[in-house]
């Protein structure tokens, strides 16, 4: 409560009283003890209530815009070599300096955002879709459940990043293969989540009600279970997106990710590794961008989760 708020009796209480019969016992109107919320725009209310989500959203929007507008925001060809300009410190010409081969780090970081985002979003979409399908089957069919869950347990016993490295070792480095490798490593987690959600939704009385109403099992899944499992799924998808971006950076950093010719944050850091004691800026900038982007995606995920929780709370 703000200190300046003065409790106020609402309405013209005395005026009302004047028109009442004289012997009527009228209750004294009580003051409000919480000041009315200041009339604020929607935007300011959102910032006040969910600062994290707003910061995350803005950050993510900036990175997205950067990736989309890469050619038009002061970048040069990120692969152009310039042997005379190697390992320069940040300057007006090269905002983030140059790397071992004289390539402009700013341009490489900006183009690298494309790789990270594409991989992050693709893995989130693919892993969610696959996990959702497998999780639904597992949650709804008791017989398939035992087999699926044993496979999932098996896959989950391998650390995801090792699994991705192993899968990458079987193929050539390309963005597509990185996406597949990380997706495979993420699917078990999503499957487990979806299965848990489905098992609890199955017990909901509205699912019983649908069955009693003569709804076919396939329609029960499609109409009652799937839509209600999307909310927790969306939140999970943002976390997968963030972890996929980190996984990509790790794979690229150890040389098992996207080909070195493609600028990605992991690649840039890998190349700067040897020089980090002398020229730490080469590693610094991609690292900052990676951290901020991952943070942004996680903040957005938390925001979605809070919004859904609030809706659930209101619903109950």
């Amino acid at each position: 409560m703000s200190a300046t708020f003065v409790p106020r009796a609402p309405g013209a209480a005395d005026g009302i009283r004047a028109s009442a019969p004289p012997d009527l016992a009228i209750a004294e109107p009580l003051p409000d003890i919480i000041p009315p919320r200041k009339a604020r725009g929607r935007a300011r209310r959102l910032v006040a209530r969910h600062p994290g989500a707003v910061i995350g959203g803005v950050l993510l929007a900036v990175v997205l815009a950067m990736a989309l507008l890469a050619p038009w925001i002061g970048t040069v060809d990120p692969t152009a070599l310039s042997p005379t300009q190697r390992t320069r410190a940040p300057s007006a010409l090269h905002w983030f300096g140059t790397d071992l081969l004289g390539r402009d780090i700013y341009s490489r970081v900006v183009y690298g955002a494309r790789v990270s985002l594409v991989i992050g979003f693709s893995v989130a979409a693919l892993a969610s879709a696959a996990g959702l399908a497998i999780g639904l089957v597992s949650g709804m069919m008791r017989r398939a459940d035992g087999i699926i869950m044993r496979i999932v347990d098996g896959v989950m016993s391998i650390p995801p990043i090792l699994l991705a490295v192993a899968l990458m070792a079987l193929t050539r480095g390309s963005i597509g293969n990185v996406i597949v490798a990380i997706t495979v490593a993420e699917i078990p987690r999503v499957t487990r989540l979806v299965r848990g959600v489905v098992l609890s939704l199955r017990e909901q009385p509205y699912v019983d009600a649908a069955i009693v109403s003569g709804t076919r099992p396939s329609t029960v899944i499609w109409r009652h279970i799937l839509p209600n499992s999307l909310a927790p799924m969306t939140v999970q998808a943002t976390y997968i997106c963030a972890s996929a971006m980190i996984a990509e950076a790790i794979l690229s950093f150890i040389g098992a990710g996207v080909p070195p010719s493609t600028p990605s944050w992991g690649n840039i850091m890998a190349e700067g590794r040897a020089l980090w004691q002398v020229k730490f800026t080469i590693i610094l900038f991609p690292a900052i961008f990676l951290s901020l982007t991952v943070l942004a995606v996680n903040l957005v995920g938390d925001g979605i989760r809070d919004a859904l929780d609030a809706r659930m709370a209101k619903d109950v």
Partner: protein
Amino acid sequence: MSPSPRPPAPALLQVSDLTKHFRVGGSVLRKARTLRAVDGISFAVAPGETLSLVGESGCGKSTVARSLVRLVSPTSGQVTLAGQRIDDLPAGTLRPLRRRIQMVFQDPFSSLNPRMRVRDILAEPIRNFGLAKNRADLDGRLAALMERVGLPREALSRFPHEFSGGQRQRIGIARALAAEPDLIICDEAVSALDVSVKAQIVNLLQNLQKELDLALLFISHDLAVVEHMTHRVAVMYLGKIVEIGPRRDIFAHPQHPYTRALLSAVPVPDPGARRSRIVLRGDVPSPIDPPRGCRFHTRCPHVVARCKIEEPRLDPIGRDHLTACHLA
């Protein structure tokens, strides 16, 4: 097996020796045990009548409801609906018959899909059972349903969370009516509601029963509500019916000691009334290992040696009035 009591009219629903056992806790180290949720019960419901199933938590009354609509499959026994056996039908053959038995659930909040509009919730059974001839017919039916349960027609386009508990329960009742059933099972349908709203819903159910000649299987632990609206009552204890009979016989002249104790335990809103209360000692035994002999003997104030050895049969003691007690 006990003889099933005859209702006044030819039965709409006839349940014979219905049994539902669940396996619990089986693992590598431990043998699975059997939970006898419902252990051989028989009753019948006549068209247009209300039969109430009463008892405390764990007595199996909800399992009976769920077995009748096949949310769980009965372990054994027969369920006959208008002369046709429905307990052994495969899911596909059963679906059209589901229309005739509908259910209203306890929790008005979780029994409506939060992501569906009222219109779609009510249209679901109508579409499933192919009751509407065309779009206009469907709209007409939806409007009529809303009016029946006392909700404004505009509410069709709203979501469940926009309604209060009582209104949601009206939607749940409308959904059950949408299928044009002969029998509605109300599983604790008014237990979660506030007193003033409870009265509204109880009255609504009674009106609907009269207007539509519905049979009701009213499952409840609230004896005052049951006495108020039922025609006949079956009292359950640990998976068995211990007493069944017309409303007046059960409430005015209960014969089974459990029924008597149950009735005397209900608080009465009359501060002056000094009643002799039968306070049962101890708790209900577990249905995993129910007592031998009469299941009530561990808490019965009148227990004799025979009760601990021999299980009493549900025997007639009056017109349509049966009880399972050696001492009755």
